[in-house]
């Protein structure tokens, strides 16, 4: 991974800032919600205290759930027809009774004015009808409605109207026409609709459905164990039923309405959690609803801790964990997740004040609910501002960090590029002039300066090395002349014969020394001749053709030229032919040294017109060993060689040949490169140099 990417990645830490804000807002929101719960709890306790203080308001029936049936207020009285169609439009949830065998009864109870309506949906595998003439009051499936000591049997001989009968205290069977029922068969059993005056059932009321079940009757409903006996032969006097209807209380409702507040739903239940009154006020719609996106952000922040789901109550009984806590004597509040938003639900127990008793008696529960967004009481604008500022500062921080990172990595990259360039041996002066400089006084600048100093030292050292050879050769030449002239003089004397051998050897040694000195100064002489060189107009292809012929003779091996359109005028160009030939001499000589005997040396000349100014590629290719990897990039440097200092032919190799090549290529504005053949069988040296057009006033020569 590049430095810039690494730094960019690190700067992502700035994103923690918005995250921290969100966390902060979440905690803040939680505090607000807790406060809201406490406020609601206070409301609930106030309502409870008010209701508890009036003994007339809260009933003190200690009936249990099994024996009570809740009466929903109905907007109209359903037609007594045995069909449940009208009930479906009413907000009345059925009360379910069932046993394990699949026998079940769903009871819907409602009141409109003075009429109590019941809708029963019975699921039973076998539906049987009353046989007239039976000893029993009901010989098959039937219903029992108990009111006080009276046990009314509703029986049907066929679908349609039912017959209501009961036994008098004296045991006589009497029909009763106040309680009317209609039975209809359904796919899964039957349904029964019953109507009776509510006044009849005020004191007590219990209902049971008896399934004959082929002589093994079973009962479901609020009547309890007496249900099976009522429909049989005369059982004598049965005890009064415990069953009761639970009805919303108008007086409680009035007392509750006083506490009604916008957005609050107040509910009062009795000790069995049956709803006695409910006051519901729509929330204030004055507040403008915020932008949906903004709302979504706030919701996201507020609701990250998953809440229990709010379940609306329809059966008239508020039996849930919150109310159960209240019934055990504790106020309790909780936030729930509801479709309209979050819903705070708080419940508080109602204690009825008993003047004569020592202890107050639990009479019911107050439930206060409020659907609200925890933020709506806050100044949304302020939060929005806070959020935006944090986001913006996080973004700025991120950008600044990334920018700083990029800048640093750019500086390092620049230094890196300069260092790489330095490796590729651009002219040191140009390199040092273009070396990255910075006014900032930091470690990178120090590093850059140190690099520059290092390069400067290397340059001085290289310069010293370059001049060393010519200085050395100059200094050595004089003593060498002493040796040679002495040897010459010695030859003039009458020496013994064996002395000639030694003078000859000394002469050979001096000769070799002289060669070495010449080789050492060659590069500086080439540099001097480059200074004095003059460019002429020549035909490059013909020149190469001529010298290839000469090389073939000199090296006793084929030197093959392949040139693009060798006779074309495109090769008329300006260059210094002597230098060019000298450069080729070096390249061919080099190739000759490495190529196995007899193999050809290939010289190629290609015309390249891909850039604005035409240039050419001169390549010298020979088979032989690949370039030594250790010398990659510095093959053309002065005093660099891949060969041993003295080869078998005792010729000296100071590593100046290719340096001269690059000097001459430079002089022509070109570059010299060395590469291995793609197939690895040898080496190719490329000279890429421009072809300046012939001068208008070109010298006539050549």
């Amino acid at each position, binding site marked *: 991974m590049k430095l810039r990417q690494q730094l960019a990645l690190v700067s992502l830490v700035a994103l923690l800032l918005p995250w921290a804000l969100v966390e902060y807002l979440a905690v803040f929101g939680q505090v607000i919600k807790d406060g809201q719960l406490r406020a609601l709890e206070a409301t609930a306790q106030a309502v409870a205290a008010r209701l508890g203080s009036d003994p007339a308001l809260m009933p003190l029936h200690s009936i249990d759930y099994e024996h009570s049936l809740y009466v929903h207020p109905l907007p109209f009285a359903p037609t007594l027809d045995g069909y449940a169609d009208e009930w479906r439009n009413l907000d009345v949830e059925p009360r379910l009774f069932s046993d394990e065998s699949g026998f079940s009864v769903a009871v819907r109870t409602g009141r409109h004015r003075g009429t109590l309506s019941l809708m029963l949906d019975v699921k039973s595998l076998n539906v049987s009808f009353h046989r007239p003439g039976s000893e029993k009051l009901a010989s098959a499936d039937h219903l029992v409605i108990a009111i006080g000591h009276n046990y009314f049997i509703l029986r049907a001989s066929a679908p349609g109207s039912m017959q209501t009968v009961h036994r008098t205290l004296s045991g006589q069977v009497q029909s009763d026409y106040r309680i009317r029922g209609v039975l209809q068969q359904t796919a899964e059993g039957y349904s029964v609709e019953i109507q009776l005056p509510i006044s009849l059932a005020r004191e007590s009321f219990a209902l049971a459905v008896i399934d004959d079940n082929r002589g093994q009757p079973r009962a479901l409903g609020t009547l309890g164990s007496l249900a099976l006996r009522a429909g049989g032969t005369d059982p004598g006097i049965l005890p009064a039923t415990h069953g009761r209807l639970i009805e919303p209380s108008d007086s409680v409702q009035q007392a509750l309405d006083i506490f009604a507040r916008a957005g609050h739903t107040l509910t009062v239940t009795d000790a069995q959690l049956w709803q006695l009154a409910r006051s519901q006020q729509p929330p204030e719609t004055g507040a403008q609803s915020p932008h949906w996106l903004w709302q979504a952000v706030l919701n996201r922040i507020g609701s990250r801790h998953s809440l229990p789901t709010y379940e609306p109550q329809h059966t008239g009984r508020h039996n849930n964990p919150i109310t159960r806590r209240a019934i055990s004597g504790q106020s309790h509040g909780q936030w729930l997740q509801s479709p309209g938003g979050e819903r705070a639900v708080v419940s508080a127990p109602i204690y009825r004040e008993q003047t004569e008793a020592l202890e107050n008696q639990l009479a019911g529960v107050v439930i206060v609910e409020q659907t609200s967004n925890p933020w709506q009481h806050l100044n949304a604008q302020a939060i929005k501002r806070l959020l935006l500022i944090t986001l913006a500062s996080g973004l700025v921080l991120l950008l600044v960090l990334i920018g700083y990172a990029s800048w640093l990595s750019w500086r390092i990259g620049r230094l890196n590029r300069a260092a790489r360039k330095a490796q590729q041996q651009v002219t040191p002066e140009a390199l040092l002039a273009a070396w990255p400089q910075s006014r900032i006084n930091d470690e990178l600048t120090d590093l850059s300066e140190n690099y520059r100093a290092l390069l400067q030292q290397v340059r001085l050292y290289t310069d010293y090395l370059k001049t060393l050879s010519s200085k050395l050769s*100059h200094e050595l030449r004089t003593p060498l002349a002493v040796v040679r*002239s002495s040897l010459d*003089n010695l030859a003039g004397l009458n020496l013994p014969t064996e002395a000639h051998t030694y003078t000859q050897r000394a002469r050979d040694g001096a000769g070799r020394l002289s060669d070495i000195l010449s080789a050492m100064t060659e590069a500086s002489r080439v540099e001097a*001749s480059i200074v004095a060189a003059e460019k002429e107009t020549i035909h490059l292809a013909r020149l190469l053709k001529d010298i290839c012929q000469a090389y073939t003779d000199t090296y006793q091996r084929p030197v093959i030229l392949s040139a693009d359109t060798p006779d074309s005028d495109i090769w008329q160009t300006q260059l210094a032919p002597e230098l060019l030939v000298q450069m080729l*001499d070096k390249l061919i000589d080099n190739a000759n040294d490495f190529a196995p005997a007899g193999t050809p040396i290939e010289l190629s000349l290609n015309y390249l017109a891909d850039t604005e100014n035409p240039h050419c590629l001169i390549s010298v290719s020979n088979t032989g060993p690949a370039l030594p990897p250790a010398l990659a990039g510095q093959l053309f440097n002065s005093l660099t060689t891949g060969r041993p200092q003295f080869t078998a032919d005792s010729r000296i190799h100071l590593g100046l040949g290719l340096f001269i090549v690059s000097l001459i290529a430079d002089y022509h504005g070109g570059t010299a490169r060395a590469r291995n053949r793609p197939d690895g069988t040898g080496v190719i040296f490329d000279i890429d140099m421009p072809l300046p057009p012939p001068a208008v006033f070109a010298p006539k020569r050549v």
Partner: protein
Amino acid sequence: MARKIAIVEDEQAIADNYRDALQKLGYKVSHHLDRPSALAAFALSLPDLAIIDVGLGDDIEGGFELCRDLRSRSPELPIVFLTARDDEFDVISGLRLGADDYLTKDIGQAQLLARINALFRRVDALRQPVKQEDALERGALAINLSRMSTHWQGQPVDLTVTEFWILHALARHPGHVKNRQQLMDAANVVLDDNTITSHIKRIRRKFNDIDAGFDRIQTAYGMGYRWLDTP
């Protein structure tokens, strides 16, 4: 009467060696270690030939000064530079001051002596009438071998001994390519390729000074040079 040769050389051993060799050939040799002593001696009597080193001790350019001085006293006096310095710049400077040749100390004694002989022959020849057999004519080029004089289109071309021998080797067989080694042999000199190239350049330039269109010395790239009789 023995000819007098003056050697101005700060390196005693070399000077002694050359003196011994020259004395053996019958020349009278005087050796001066530095410029003042040489000047003092030349003020008394001029030698017949002077061999001068460029750097004389701490006097780095002393040889050049001495050459200028000598040339002003005698335009005919053969002067040869014999030095360890082989910079192109030094060579050009030395020749411009009127030296007859510029030799590096690589040169062998035999080659030095050949030059000294040739220079004395020229001095002698200049005192005698022109002999036809020494002359070589190639069109506009006229060469006198013993006088070592060269004329192009009737005008004299001032060549050094080395240059003269190179030109002579080329012009003797027009059209034939002479490679560098052959030219070196002809010029009694051991030089590297670059030096031959610069000699050829200097010869061309001297002809060009007389005739801007001169193009008789042709480069056969990779092989050598040849004289063309016809342009």
